[in-house]
Protein backbone atom coordinates (compact mmCIF):
# COMPACT_ATOMS: atom_id res chain seq x y z
CA UNK A 1 0.00 0.00 0.00
CA UNK A 2 2.86 2.36 0.83
CA UNK A 3 4.43 1.80 -2.57
CA UNK A 4 1.13 2.58 -4.27
CA UNK A 5 0.75 5.85 -2.35
CA UNK A 6 4.36 6.86 -2.99
CA UNK A 7 4.04 6.08 -6.71
CA UNK A 8 0.87 8.14 -6.91
CA UNK A 9 2.60 11.15 -5.33
CA UNK A 10 5.55 10.70 -7.67
CA UNK A 11 3.18 10.62 -10.65
CA UNK A 12 1.54 13.83 -9.45
CA UNK A 13 4.94 15.51 -9.11
CA UNK A 14 5.60 14.93 -12.80
CA UNK A 15 2.73 17.17 -13.82
CA UNK A 16 2.02 19.31 -10.75
CA UNK A 17 4.91 21.68 -9.89
CA UNK A 18 3.38 22.44 -6.50
CA UNK A 19 3.67 18.93 -5.05
CA UNK A 20 6.43 18.79 -2.42
CA UNK A 21 7.49 15.61 -0.57
CA UNK A 22 8.98 15.71 2.93
CA UNK A 23 10.12 12.91 5.17
CA UNK A 24 11.38 12.76 8.74
CA UNK A 25 14.13 10.34 7.73
CA UNK A 26 11.79 7.45 6.88
CA UNK A 27 11.06 5.49 3.72
CA UNK A 28 14.31 3.80 2.76
CA UNK A 29 14.01 2.31 -0.72
CA UNK A 30 10.87 4.34 -1.40
CA UNK A 31 11.65 8.05 -1.17
CA UNK A 32 15.01 8.27 -2.92
CA UNK A 33 13.43 8.81 -6.31
CA UNK A 34 11.91 12.09 -5.12
CA UNK A 35 15.33 13.46 -4.27
CA UNK A 36 16.90 12.13 -7.46
CA UNK A 37 14.24 13.52 -9.78
CA UNK A 38 12.88 16.55 -7.94
CA UNK A 39 15.56 17.80 -5.53
CA UNK A 40 13.87 21.22 -5.28
CA UNK A 41 10.64 19.64 -4.11
CA UNK A 42 12.01 17.05 -1.71
CA UNK A 43 13.31 17.42 1.81
CA UNK A 44 14.48 14.99 4.44
CA UNK A 45 14.14 17.20 7.51
CA UNK A 46 15.71 14.67 9.84
CA UNK A 47 14.19 13.13 12.94
CA UNK A 48 12.30 16.28 13.82
CA UNK A 49 8.55 15.91 13.41
CA UNK A 50 7.63 19.33 14.78
CA UNK A 51 9.87 20.83 12.14
CA UNK A 52 8.36 18.52 9.52
CA UNK A 53 4.88 19.93 10.05
CA UNK A 54 5.97 23.53 10.58
CA UNK A 55 8.06 23.51 7.40
CA UNK A 56 5.12 22.01 5.52
CA UNK A 57 2.95 24.92 6.66
CA UNK A 58 5.57 27.39 5.46
CA UNK A 59 5.63 25.68 2.09
CA UNK A 60 1.87 26.11 1.77
CA UNK A 61 2.47 29.84 2.32
CA UNK A 62 4.49 29.64 -0.91
CA UNK A 63 1.73 27.77 -2.72
CA UNK A 64 3.11 24.23 -2.40
CA UNK A 65 1.08 21.08 -1.68
CA UNK A 66 3.21 19.22 0.87
CA UNK A 67 3.07 15.51 1.62
CA UNK A 68 4.74 14.80 4.97
CA UNK A 69 5.83 11.24 5.65
CA UNK A 70 6.85 9.26 8.72
CA UNK A 71 5.54 6.57 11.08
CA UNK A 72 1.90 7.24 12.03
CA UNK A 73 2.45 7.69 15.77
CA UNK A 74 5.29 10.11 15.27
CA UNK A 75 3.46 12.34 12.83
CA UNK A 76 0.29 12.50 14.93
CA UNK A 77 1.36 12.42 18.56
CA UNK A 78 4.77 14.11 18.55
CA UNK A 79 3.52 17.24 16.84
CA UNK A 80 -0.17 17.38 17.63
CA UNK A 81 -0.08 21.11 18.41
CA UNK A 82 1.64 21.81 15.09
CA UNK A 83 -1.14 19.87 13.35
CA UNK A 84 -3.80 21.78 15.29
CA UNK A 85 -2.36 25.26 14.87
CA UNK A 86 -0.19 25.27 11.78
CA UNK A 87 -2.39 23.00 9.64
CA UNK A 88 -5.88 22.93 11.15
CA UNK A 89 -6.33 26.58 12.15
CA UNK A 90 -5.10 27.63 8.72
CA UNK A 91 -7.04 24.92 6.81
CA UNK A 92 -3.79 24.25 4.95
CA UNK A 93 -3.83 21.52 2.27
CA UNK A 94 -1.09 19.42 3.83
CA UNK A 95 -1.30 15.64 3.64
CA UNK A 96 0.14 13.72 6.56
CA UNK A 97 1.30 10.26 5.54
CA UNK A 98 1.40 7.82 8.43
CA UNK A 99 3.13 4.56 7.67
CA UNK A 100 1.76 1.49 9.41
CA UNK A 101 -1.45 0.89 11.31
CA UNK A 102 -2.68 -1.10 14.29
CA UNK A 103 -0.25 -3.92 14.95
CA UNK A 104 1.72 -3.75 11.69
CA UNK A 105 4.85 -3.25 13.81
CA UNK A 106 3.83 -5.98 16.24
CA UNK A 107 7.09 -6.95 18.01
CA UNK A 108 8.39 -3.39 18.31
CA UNK A 109 6.26 -2.67 21.35
CA UNK A 110 3.54 -0.19 22.30
CA UNK A 111 5.34 2.95 21.12
CA UNK A 112 4.99 1.50 17.63
CA UNK A 113 1.47 0.10 17.96
CA UNK A 114 -0.78 2.46 16.01
CA UNK A 115 -3.92 2.20 18.11
CA UNK A 116 -4.84 5.81 18.88
CA UNK A 117 -3.62 7.85 15.92
CA UNK A 118 -6.66 8.84 13.92
CA UNK A 119 -8.87 8.88 17.00
CA UNK A 120 -6.62 11.58 18.42
CA UNK A 121 -6.80 13.48 15.16
CA UNK A 122 -10.58 13.12 15.10
CA UNK A 123 -10.72 15.65 17.92
CA UNK A 124 -9.73 18.35 15.45
CA UNK A 125 -12.54 19.70 13.31
CA UNK A 126 -11.27 19.97 9.77
CA UNK A 127 -8.82 17.24 8.82
CA UNK A 128 -10.00 14.49 6.47
CA UNK A 129 -8.92 10.99 7.50
CA UNK A 130 -8.33 8.06 5.16
CA UNK A 131 -7.32 4.45 5.71
CA UNK A 132 -7.20 2.61 2.39
CA UNK A 133 -8.20 -1.02 2.65
CA UNK A 134 -7.11 -2.00 -0.83
CA UNK A 135 -4.79 -1.05 -3.67
CA UNK A 136 -7.77 -0.05 -5.79
CA UNK A 137 -8.73 2.66 -3.33
CA UNK A 138 -5.14 3.76 -2.75
CA UNK A 139 -4.51 4.13 -6.48
CA UNK A 140 -6.52 7.32 -6.98
CA UNK A 141 -6.48 8.64 -3.43
CA UNK A 142 -3.67 11.17 -3.90
CA UNK A 143 -5.37 12.73 -6.91
CA UNK A 144 -8.62 13.00 -4.94
CA UNK A 145 -6.86 14.63 -2.00
CA UNK A 146 -5.11 17.17 -4.23
CA UNK A 147 -8.44 18.05 -5.82
CA UNK A 148 -10.13 18.38 -2.42
CA UNK A 149 -7.47 20.89 -1.29
CA UNK A 150 -8.01 20.19 2.39
CA UNK A 151 -5.88 19.03 5.33
CA UNK A 152 -5.68 15.25 5.24
CA UNK A 153 -4.19 12.27 7.04
CA UNK A 154 -3.63 8.92 5.36
CA UNK A 155 -3.23 6.01 7.73
CA UNK A 156 -1.37 3.57 5.47
CA UNK A 157 -1.66 -0.13 6.31
CA UNK A 158 1.13 -2.53 5.51
CA UNK A 159 0.12 -5.07 2.91
CA UNK A 160 -1.12 -5.00 -0.67
CA UNK A 161 -4.72 -6.15 -0.62
CA UNK A 162 -6.69 -6.48 -3.82
CA UNK A 163 -10.13 -6.61 -2.20
CA UNK A 164 -12.43 -4.79 -2.31
CA UNK A 165 -11.70 -3.79 -5.88
CA UNK A 166 -13.30 -0.38 -5.58
CA UNK A 167 -12.45 3.32 -5.44
CA UNK A 168 -15.49 4.15 -3.28
CA UNK A 169 -15.14 5.67 0.18
CA UNK A 170 -17.58 3.10 1.54
CA UNK A 171 -18.17 -0.40 0.13
CA UNK A 172 -20.95 -2.74 1.20
CA UNK A 173 -20.44 -6.46 0.65
CA UNK A 174 -23.97 -7.72 1.15
CA UNK A 175 -24.48 -11.08 2.81
CA UNK A 176 -27.29 -13.58 2.48
CA UNK A 177 -28.91 -12.34 5.68
CA UNK A 178 -29.51 -8.91 7.19
CA UNK A 179 -28.75 -10.11 10.70
CA UNK A 180 -25.08 -9.25 11.13
CA UNK A 181 -23.07 -6.42 9.62
CA UNK A 182 -19.32 -6.17 10.24
CA UNK A 183 -17.96 -2.63 9.85
CA UNK A 184 -14.21 -2.21 9.45
CA UNK A 185 -11.27 -0.46 7.74
CA UNK A 186 -7.60 -1.04 6.97
CA UNK A 187 -6.14 -4.46 7.62
CA UNK A 188 -8.98 -5.72 9.86
CA UNK A 189 -11.32 -5.17 6.89
CA UNK A 190 -9.50 -8.10 5.29
CA UNK A 191 -10.28 -10.22 8.33
CA UNK A 192 -13.95 -9.31 8.01
CA UNK A 193 -13.90 -10.28 4.32
CA UNK A 194 -12.43 -13.62 5.39
CA UNK A 195 -15.25 -14.05 7.92
CA UNK A 196 -17.79 -13.45 5.15
CA UNK A 197 -16.14 -16.15 3.07
CA UNK A 198 -16.55 -18.52 6.02
CA UNK A 199 -20.14 -17.49 6.62
CA UNK A 200 -21.90 -16.01 3.55
CA UNK A 201 -24.77 -14.75 5.71
CA UNK A 202 -22.55 -11.98 7.04
CA UNK A 203 -22.49 -8.53 5.46
CA UNK A 204 -19.35 -6.38 5.54
CA UNK A 205 -19.07 -2.61 5.30
CA UNK A 206 -15.56 -1.42 4.41
CA UNK A 207 -14.90 2.26 5.10
CA UNK A 208 -11.88 3.83 3.40
CA UNK A 209 -12.58 7.42 4.34
CA UNK A 210 -13.04 7.59 8.08
CA UNK A 211 -13.87 11.28 8.13
CA UNK A 212 -16.04 12.78 6.90
CA UNK A 213 -18.48 9.87 6.80
CA UNK A 214 -21.12 10.06 4.10
CA UNK A 215 -24.31 10.28 6.17
CA UNK A 216 -26.71 9.02 3.53
CA UNK A 217 -24.51 6.12 2.43
CA UNK A 218 -23.84 5.14 6.03
CA UNK A 219 -27.50 5.30 6.93
CA UNK A 220 -28.40 3.03 4.02
CA UNK A 221 -25.56 0.65 4.84
CA UNK A 222 -26.48 0.27 8.52
CA UNK A 223 -30.24 0.11 8.01
CA UNK A 224 -32.12 -3.17 8.69
CA UNK A 225 -29.19 -5.01 10.30
CA UNK A 226 -29.96 -6.46 13.74
CA UNK A 227 -26.34 -6.47 14.85
CA UNK A 228 -23.67 -3.99 13.81
CA UNK A 229 -20.19 -5.10 14.92
CA UNK A 230 -17.34 -2.62 14.45
CA UNK A 231 -13.99 -4.40 14.06
CA UNK A 232 -10.84 -2.28 14.26
CA UNK A 233 -7.13 -2.23 15.16
CA UNK A 234 -7.55 1.03 17.08
CA UNK A 235 -9.09 2.04 20.39
CA UNK A 236 -12.83 1.75 19.73
CA UNK A 237 -13.96 4.67 21.91
CA UNK A 238 -12.01 7.16 19.83
CA UNK A 239 -12.11 5.09 16.66
CA UNK A 240 -14.81 3.99 14.25
CA UNK A 241 -16.97 2.50 17.02
CA UNK A 242 -17.16 5.98 18.56
CA UNK A 243 -18.01 7.52 15.20
CA UNK A 244 -20.74 4.95 14.49
CA UNK A 245 -22.22 5.38 17.99
CA UNK A 246 -22.36 9.13 17.41
CA UNK A 247 -24.05 8.54 14.08
CA UNK A 248 -26.60 6.11 15.46
CA UNK A 249 -27.44 8.47 18.31
CA UNK A 250 -28.65 11.03 15.80
CA UNK A 251 -30.15 8.79 13.12
CA UNK A 252 -33.00 6.26 13.12
CA UNK A 253 -30.80 3.15 13.12
CA UNK A 254 -32.21 0.34 15.25
CA UNK A 255 -29.54 -2.36 15.15
CA UNK A 256 -27.52 -3.24 18.24
CA UNK A 257 -24.01 -1.79 18.08
CA UNK A 258 -21.05 -3.87 19.30
CA UNK A 259 -17.29 -3.37 19.27
CA UNK A 260 -14.19 -5.51 18.82
CA UNK A 261 -10.73 -3.97 19.20
CA UNK A 262 -7.89 -3.22 21.60
CA UNK A 263 -8.80 -1.34 24.79
CA UNK A 264 -5.38 -0.43 26.12
CA UNK A 265 -1.65 -0.51 25.43
CA UNK A 266 0.33 -3.67 25.98
CA UNK A 267 3.98 -4.46 26.58
CA UNK A 268 3.34 -8.10 25.72
CA UNK A 269 5.49 -9.21 22.80
CA UNK A 270 3.84 -10.61 19.70
CA UNK A 271 5.91 -11.40 16.65
CA UNK A 272 3.12 -10.79 14.15
CA UNK A 273 -0.08 -8.72 13.86
CA UNK A 274 -2.04 -11.96 14.05
CA UNK A 275 -0.87 -12.45 17.64
CA UNK A 276 -2.56 -9.22 18.65
CA UNK A 277 -5.60 -9.80 16.46
CA UNK A 278 -6.19 -12.97 18.48
CA UNK A 279 -5.40 -11.25 21.79
CA UNK A 280 -7.96 -8.54 21.10
CA UNK A 281 -10.55 -10.78 19.48
CA UNK A 282 -10.36 -9.43 15.95
CA UNK A 283 -8.98 -12.54 14.23
CA UNK A 284 -11.31 -14.54 11.98
CA UNK A 285 -11.97 -17.27 14.54
CA UNK A 286 -12.77 -14.85 17.33
CA UNK A 287 -15.08 -12.76 15.17
CA UNK A 288 -16.99 -15.88 14.11
CA UNK A 289 -17.25 -16.95 17.75
CA UNK A 290 -18.74 -13.60 18.72
CA UNK A 291 -21.23 -13.79 15.85
CA UNK A 292 -22.27 -17.37 16.66
CA UNK A 293 -22.31 -16.96 20.44
CA UNK A 294 -24.82 -14.16 20.24
CA UNK A 295 -26.77 -16.09 17.57
CA UNK A 296 -27.17 -19.01 20.02
CA UNK A 297 -28.90 -16.83 22.64
Amino acid at each position, binding site marked *: MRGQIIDSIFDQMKTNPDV*FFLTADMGIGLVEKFEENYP*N*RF*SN*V*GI*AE*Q*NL*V*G*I*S*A*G*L*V*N*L*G*FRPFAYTISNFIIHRCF*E*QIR*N*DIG*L*HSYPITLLGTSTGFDNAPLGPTHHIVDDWGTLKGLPNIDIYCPSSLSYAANLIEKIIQAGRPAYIRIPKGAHTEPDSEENMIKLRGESDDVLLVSYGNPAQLCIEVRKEDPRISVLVINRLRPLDDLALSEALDLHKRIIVVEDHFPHSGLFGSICEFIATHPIHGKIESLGPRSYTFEVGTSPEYFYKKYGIDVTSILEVINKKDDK
Partner: protein
Amino acid sequence: MQTSTNNSTTSVPVLQLVDPNAVRRSVLTMLYRAKASHLGSNMSAIEMLIAMYASVDCEKIRKQKSDRSRILISKGHCAAATYATLAHYGILPMHLLETYHLDGSKLAGHVSHTVEGVEHSTGALGHGINVALGCAMGLRSRGHVNRLVLALVGDGEIQEGSIWEAMMFAVHLKLNNFITLVDNNRISSITNTEKVIDMRPLKARFEGFGLNVHEVDGHDVLAIMSAIEQIQKDNLPGVIICNTIKGYGVPFAEWQPMWHYKSLTEDQYTEAIDHLDRLKVA
Protein backbone atom coordinates in the same frame (compact mmCIF):
# COMPACT_ATOMS: atom_id res chain seq x y z
CA MET B 1 5.60 58.30 9.38
CA GLN B 2 8.76 60.36 9.69
CA THR B 3 11.97 60.51 7.76
CA SER B 4 14.93 59.15 9.65
CA THR B 5 18.42 60.40 8.99
CA ASN B 6 21.18 57.89 8.62
CA ASN B 7 23.92 57.90 11.24
CA SER B 8 27.58 57.12 10.92
CA THR B 9 27.44 53.68 12.58
CA THR B 10 25.64 51.87 9.80
CA SER B 11 25.61 51.48 6.06
CA VAL B 12 21.81 51.18 5.91
CA PRO B 13 20.50 53.69 3.38
CA VAL B 14 18.16 56.46 4.40
CA LEU B 15 14.66 55.01 4.51
CA GLN B 16 11.22 56.02 5.52
CA LEU B 17 11.12 54.66 9.06
CA VAL B 18 8.15 54.53 11.31
CA ASP B 19 8.57 56.48 14.55
CA PRO B 20 8.84 54.10 17.55
CA ASN B 21 7.27 56.74 19.77
CA ALA B 22 4.17 56.82 17.57
CA VAL B 23 3.89 53.01 17.51
CA ARG B 24 4.36 52.89 21.28
CA ARG B 25 1.56 55.42 21.69
CA SER B 26 -0.75 53.31 19.49
CA VAL B 27 0.08 50.18 21.44
CA LEU B 28 -0.56 51.84 24.80
CA THR B 29 -3.95 53.06 23.58
CA MET B 30 -4.86 49.62 22.21
CA LEU B 31 -3.89 47.88 25.44
CA TYR B 32 -5.58 50.45 27.67
CA ARG B 33 -8.83 50.48 25.68
CA ALA B 34 -9.09 46.69 25.76
CA LYS B 35 -7.69 46.21 29.30
CA ALA B 36 -5.30 43.81 27.58
CA SER B 37 -2.09 42.23 28.85
CA HIS B 38 1.40 41.60 27.41
CA LEU B 39 2.46 45.25 27.71
CA GLY B 40 6.06 44.33 28.50
CA SER B 41 6.50 41.96 25.55
CA ASN B 42 4.94 44.43 23.12
CA MET B 43 7.10 47.33 24.23
CA SER B 44 10.36 45.40 23.99
CA ALA B 45 9.75 44.38 20.37
CA ILE B 46 8.67 47.68 18.77
CA GLU B 47 12.04 48.77 17.36
CA MET B 48 12.65 45.21 16.13
CA LEU B 49 9.33 45.19 14.27
CA ILE B 50 10.01 48.58 12.75
CA ALA B 51 13.43 47.41 11.55
CA MET B 52 12.06 44.15 10.16
CA TYR B 53 9.39 45.79 8.01
CA ALA B 54 11.83 48.52 6.97
CA SER B 55 14.19 45.82 5.68
CA VAL B 56 11.71 44.36 3.21
CA ASP B 57 9.50 45.62 0.40
CA CYS B 58 6.29 46.46 2.25
CA GLU B 59 4.50 47.17 -1.01
CA LYS B 60 4.82 43.51 -1.96
CA ILE B 61 3.43 42.54 1.44
CA ARG B 62 0.57 44.97 1.02
CA LYS B 63 -0.25 43.47 -2.37
CA GLN B 64 0.40 39.90 -1.15
CA LYS B 65 2.81 39.23 -4.00
CA SER B 66 3.95 35.62 -4.09
CA ASP B 67 7.60 36.70 -4.27
CA ARG B 68 7.33 38.97 -1.22
CA SER B 69 9.71 38.64 1.68
CA ARG B 70 8.06 36.97 4.66
CA ILE B 71 7.93 38.25 8.24
CA LEU B 72 6.84 35.68 10.80
CA ILE B 73 5.88 36.68 14.32
CA SER B 74 6.70 33.57 16.31
CA LYS B 75 6.18 35.32 19.68
CA GLY B 76 2.56 35.88 18.77
CA HIS B 77 1.75 37.70 22.00
CA CYS B 78 3.32 40.89 20.67
CA ALA B 79 0.21 41.21 18.51
CA ALA B 80 -0.58 44.80 19.52
CA ALA B 81 2.90 45.97 18.53
CA THR B 82 2.73 43.98 15.29
CA TYR B 83 -0.67 45.38 14.33
CA ALA B 84 0.38 48.92 15.24
CA THR B 85 3.58 48.59 13.19
CA LEU B 86 1.66 47.21 10.22
CA ALA B 87 -0.78 50.12 10.49
CA HIS B 88 1.98 52.72 10.69
CA TYR B 89 3.57 51.19 7.58
CA GLY B 90 0.22 51.43 5.80
CA ILE B 91 -0.26 47.67 5.47
CA LEU B 92 -3.18 47.46 7.91
CA PRO B 93 -5.91 50.13 8.01
CA MET B 94 -5.18 52.35 11.01
CA HIS B 95 -8.81 52.44 12.17
CA LEU B 96 -8.75 48.66 12.78
CA LEU B 97 -6.41 49.22 15.72
CA GLU B 98 -9.41 50.58 17.61
CA THR B 99 -10.95 47.11 17.55
CA TYR B 100 -7.98 45.34 19.13
CA HIS B 101 -8.95 42.69 21.67
CA LEU B 102 -12.64 43.71 21.54
CA ASP B 103 -15.82 41.72 20.82
CA GLY B 104 -16.24 40.75 17.17
CA SER B 105 -12.81 41.98 16.12
CA LYS B 106 -10.34 39.85 14.17
CA LEU B 107 -7.45 41.48 16.04
CA ALA B 108 -6.94 39.03 18.91
CA GLY B 109 -4.26 39.08 21.56
CA HIS B 110 -2.06 36.81 19.43
CA VAL B 111 -1.34 37.48 15.78
CA SER B 112 -3.81 36.09 13.27
CA HIS B 113 -3.32 35.38 9.57
CA THR B 114 -6.83 36.66 8.99
CA VAL B 115 -5.39 40.16 9.52
CA GLU B 116 -3.79 41.99 6.59
CA GLY B 117 -0.02 41.58 6.49
CA VAL B 118 0.20 38.69 8.97
CA GLU B 119 1.69 35.57 7.40
CA HIS B 120 0.79 33.01 10.02
CA SER B 121 -1.29 32.72 13.18
CA THR B 122 0.78 32.04 16.26
CA GLY B 123 0.33 32.09 20.01
CA ALA B 124 1.66 28.77 21.19
CA LEU B 125 5.41 29.29 21.25
CA GLY B 126 7.94 27.51 19.07
CA HIS B 127 5.72 27.34 15.98
CA GLY B 128 6.34 30.41 13.83
CA ILE B 129 10.05 29.74 13.47
CA ASN B 130 9.48 26.37 11.78
CA VAL B 131 6.89 27.85 9.46
CA ALA B 132 9.37 30.63 8.66
CA LEU B 133 11.94 27.99 7.75
CA GLY B 134 9.40 26.39 5.41
CA CYS B 135 8.87 29.80 3.80
CA ALA B 136 12.61 30.21 3.29
CA MET B 137 12.84 26.74 1.72
CA GLY B 138 9.84 27.52 -0.45
CA LEU B 139 11.31 30.82 -1.63
CA ARG B 140 14.52 29.02 -2.61
CA SER B 141 12.57 26.28 -4.35
CA ARG B 142 10.58 28.90 -6.29
CA GLY B 143 13.81 30.66 -7.27
CA HIS B 144 13.21 33.81 -5.19
CA VAL B 145 16.62 33.58 -3.61
CA ASN B 146 16.92 37.28 -2.81
CA ARG B 147 13.79 37.46 -0.70
CA LEU B 148 14.14 37.51 3.06
CA VAL B 149 12.41 35.54 5.77
CA LEU B 150 12.59 37.32 9.11
CA ALA B 151 11.29 35.57 12.20
CA LEU B 152 10.74 37.26 15.55
CA VAL B 153 11.13 34.99 18.59
CA GLY B 154 11.22 35.69 22.29
CA ASP B 155 14.15 34.79 24.52
CA GLY B 156 11.78 32.73 26.66
CA GLU B 157 10.44 31.07 23.54
CA ILE B 158 13.84 29.67 22.62
CA GLN B 159 13.42 27.22 25.50
CA GLU B 160 11.13 25.32 23.11
CA GLY B 161 12.89 22.41 21.40
CA SER B 162 11.26 23.09 18.05
CA ILE B 163 13.30 26.31 17.80
CA TRP B 164 16.49 24.28 17.72
CA GLU B 165 15.09 21.82 15.20
CA ALA B 166 14.67 24.81 12.88
CA MET B 167 18.15 26.18 13.64
CA MET B 168 19.88 22.86 12.93
CA PHE B 169 18.14 22.39 9.63
CA ALA B 170 18.52 25.99 8.46
CA VAL B 171 22.28 25.72 8.95
CA HIS B 172 22.34 22.37 7.15
CA LEU B 173 20.58 23.99 4.18
CA LYS B 174 22.76 27.12 4.37
CA LEU B 175 19.70 29.35 4.05
CA ASN B 176 21.20 32.80 4.31
CA ASN B 177 17.83 34.42 3.60
CA PHE B 178 16.53 33.01 6.90
CA ILE B 179 17.12 35.37 9.80
CA THR B 180 15.86 34.93 13.34
CA LEU B 181 15.60 37.97 15.57
CA VAL B 182 15.59 37.20 19.29
CA ASP B 183 13.80 39.70 21.52
CA ASN B 184 16.28 39.25 24.37
CA ASN B 185 14.34 41.08 27.08
CA ARG B 186 15.48 38.53 29.64
CA ILE B 187 12.08 38.05 31.23
CA SER B 188 9.76 35.25 30.21
CA SER B 189 6.34 34.50 31.64
CA ILE B 190 6.75 34.82 35.38
CA THR B 191 10.38 35.67 36.11
CA ASN B 192 13.82 36.39 34.68
CA THR B 193 14.88 33.90 32.01
CA GLU B 194 18.27 33.34 33.63
CA LYS B 195 16.48 32.04 36.73
CA VAL B 196 14.45 29.58 34.64
CA ILE B 197 17.02 28.31 32.15
CA ASP B 198 20.21 30.32 32.05
CA MET B 199 21.10 30.40 28.36
CA ARG B 200 24.17 32.60 28.73
CA PRO B 201 26.34 32.94 26.76
CA LEU B 202 23.48 33.04 24.27
CA LYS B 203 25.60 34.17 21.32
CA ALA B 204 27.95 31.22 21.75
CA ARG B 205 25.04 28.79 21.90
CA PHE B 206 23.69 29.94 18.56
CA GLU B 207 27.21 30.02 17.12
CA GLY B 208 27.65 26.45 18.34
CA PHE B 209 24.78 25.48 16.08
CA GLY B 210 26.68 27.05 13.19
CA LEU B 211 24.64 30.23 12.81
CA ASN B 212 25.89 33.66 11.79
CA VAL B 213 25.16 35.57 15.00
CA HIS B 214 25.01 39.31 15.54
CA GLU B 215 24.25 41.01 18.84
CA VAL B 216 22.80 44.52 18.85
CA ASP B 217 20.93 47.07 20.95
CA GLY B 218 17.37 45.93 20.29
CA HIS B 219 16.06 49.47 20.59
CA ASP B 220 18.35 50.78 17.82
CA VAL B 221 16.39 50.37 14.59
CA LEU B 222 19.32 51.15 12.31
CA ALA B 223 21.64 48.73 14.09
CA ILE B 224 19.12 45.92 13.62
CA MET B 225 18.72 46.79 9.94
CA SER B 226 22.47 46.83 9.50
CA ALA B 227 22.75 43.35 11.01
CA ILE B 228 20.04 42.07 8.65
CA GLU B 229 22.00 43.47 5.74
CA GLN B 230 25.29 41.98 6.93
CA ILE B 231 23.86 38.47 7.31
CA GLN B 232 22.70 38.40 3.70
CA LYS B 233 26.29 38.91 2.53
CA ASP B 234 27.32 35.62 4.13
CA ASN B 235 26.20 32.10 3.23
CA LEU B 236 24.71 31.05 6.56
CA PRO B 237 21.36 31.66 8.22
CA GLY B 238 21.55 34.41 10.78
CA VAL B 239 20.47 35.16 14.29
CA ILE B 240 20.27 38.69 15.63
CA ILE B 241 20.22 38.82 19.40
CA CYS B 242 18.42 42.07 20.10
CA ASN B 243 19.09 43.13 23.67
CA THR B 244 15.93 44.83 24.79
CA ILE B 245 14.17 46.01 27.90
CA LYS B 246 10.83 44.44 28.67
CA GLY B 247 8.32 47.27 28.97
CA TYR B 248 10.71 49.70 27.22
CA GLY B 249 9.41 53.26 27.09
CA VAL B 250 6.97 52.81 29.97
CA PRO B 251 9.17 53.57 33.02
CA PHE B 252 6.98 51.95 35.68
CA ALA B 253 6.76 48.72 33.61
CA GLU B 254 10.40 48.35 32.59
CA TRP B 255 12.06 45.14 33.85
CA GLN B 256 8.87 44.14 35.72
CA PRO B 257 7.71 40.55 35.05
CA MET B 258 4.19 41.37 36.25
CA TRP B 259 3.67 43.58 33.17
CA HIS B 260 3.44 40.40 31.13
CA TYR B 261 -0.02 40.13 32.65
CA LYS B 262 -1.23 43.47 34.05
CA SER B 263 -3.50 45.87 32.22
CA LEU B 264 -3.26 49.65 32.42
CA THR B 265 -5.39 51.78 34.75
CA GLU B 266 -6.46 55.20 33.56
CA ASP B 267 -3.79 56.89 35.68
CA GLN B 268 -1.08 54.54 34.42
CA TYR B 269 -2.14 55.09 30.83
CA THR B 270 -2.00 58.86 31.30
CA GLU B 271 1.40 58.62 32.96
CA ALA B 272 2.75 56.46 30.12
CA ILE B 273 1.43 58.79 27.42
CA ASP B 274 2.80 61.83 29.27
CA HIS B 275 6.21 60.17 29.33
CA LEU B 276 6.09 59.63 25.55
CA ASP B 277 5.03 63.27 25.11
CA ARG B 278 8.04 64.45 27.08
CA LEU B 279 10.37 62.24 24.98
CA LYS B 280 8.89 63.66 21.82
CA VAL B 281 9.45 67.24 22.97
CA ALA B 282 12.98 66.46 24.05
